[in-house]
């Protein structure tokens, strides 16, 4: 089943932060990790990842640096304290929201 893009849009930043909370990653690595963790439920257009990353960096939630690995120069992203705080808040919000949605949908 494919998930609607609209559903993904609101949570994309939180998902990216969540992936990066596990360790520093570069753009392509983030996309692949997202796909793997969601068991291919999320298949975002890879190009749309960059505005999310850059916006989070601008907000001070991420920091980036270049590092050479496997013969390639990659731009890695690192979550800041502010980013972790934002992730925690968004997660709580999401759990609260999804629980509410679940109660409504399962109401008999």
């Amino acid at each position, binding site marked *: 089943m494919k998930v609607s893009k609209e559903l993904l849009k609101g949570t994309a930043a939180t998902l990216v932060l969540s992936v990066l909370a596990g360790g*520093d990653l*570069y*753009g*392509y690595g983030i996309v*692949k990790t997202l796909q793997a963790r969601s068991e291919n439920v999320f298949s975002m*257009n*890879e*190009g*749309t990842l*960059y*505005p999310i990353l*850059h*916006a989070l960096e*601008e907000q*001070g939630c991420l*920091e*980036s*640096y*270049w*590092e050479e690995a496997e013969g*390639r*120069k*990659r*731009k*890695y992203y*690192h979550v800041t304290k502010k980013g972790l705080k934002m992730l925690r808040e968004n997660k709580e919000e999401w759990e609260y929201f999804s629980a509410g949605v679940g109660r409504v949908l399962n109401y008999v």
Partner: protein
Amino acid sequence: MSEDNYTRQVLEGIESKRVKRLIEAELENHLAEASAALTDLGCPPEDAANRANAAMGENPEAVGAQLNAIHRGRTALRLLLAFAAGTLPVLSLALLDGIATSQDHILFAPGFLLEFSLLLYVSARKRTRVYLFPALFPAAGAVWLCTLIYTEAARLFTGELLYYVEAAFADTYVSSTAGMAVCGVVLAAVWCASFLLITALRCGQITKRGLVCLRVLRGIFLGAAAAALCLLAVTAVLRSQCSFLPISAEKSSIFRRWYLINAERELTDDEIRALVDELNAAPPEDVNTETKLRYADTWMTVLKIETGAGTLEKSREYVRIENNGCAANESRDHNARLRNERGDLVSGTEVTFRYAALYPFLCAAECDPENGIAAVTRYPVQTEEPIRLQAHGDGLRAQITIRIDRPQPPPKDFSLY
């Protein structure tokens, strides 16, 4: 759509050349990674490139527009507020009080430190059009700033405010020049390193190690800003508590080395003479020989005295040491708050008052270059003509200069004990 095309279409929507370079490298790297992964899975190279492009999405223009919006220069309100926070108190002092603000380290050091630290912190965080200005400004002023910090700390702990501990720390002044220089060089280096790291960060060229360094530097400057605030607060409290005037017999001998100007009333000739005699008869005993040597030839210039609504005296003390043809000069500023109990100063009033003495004694040192001080000769302080001050507005304001020179030239041919 080829790799090149996707990237080019994204870049077309971005205005800044710097951001273009940054994003171009990132996107090309992404596409190359994706292509390589597909090739590893057995996909032909051309097909892999096409599939990698397809995975990027079908709307590169929209991605370009979004990235452009994120990176567009904007007015840095926090930056402007940081400037205002550091500059306004100084400007208000200069404009309203007429204080020679460039001399007033006490007020300047913490304010400017706070300002520059905030600028650095904000400029590292935000992409703003005014980025370059605040980054260069602190770099240029770093050495100067650091000397102020050091001076402030030296003042605080050597006794101008806490004069009780002055004797214990008197010799700190000896090393103040070296201390200022070291402090200035170290912090200037830190500023320059920060600047380079921020520039690398902004150009997307920073490495992981650089990022860690930048975090440490940010911490240092934030800590320094916090320390400056504390220093400012402590200084303000102490200044409000301390009074250096007038001199009295109850004051300790340490205190006698400080200000003897009494602006509360005009002193008579007899009082001046009695005061000078008293001081000459009982010079401070607390100063050690090294201090005496530094005071071998001392004179003092009072730059400004204000009485009325608020009074401030600012003076500069000069010390000249001569030792068998070799001479050294030292000067330093003093700030003192004159107690204002004069309620009758109104516009047009002319007040004449005299200084009693600026220094309890003057002495000439006769030195043995190998064995240290051989003799110290004291000279009595000479008083000068009364100084006339003019009242302006609601207070008294005048620019006066008092100079006391040693009454006799120092002995050139000294004899050893």
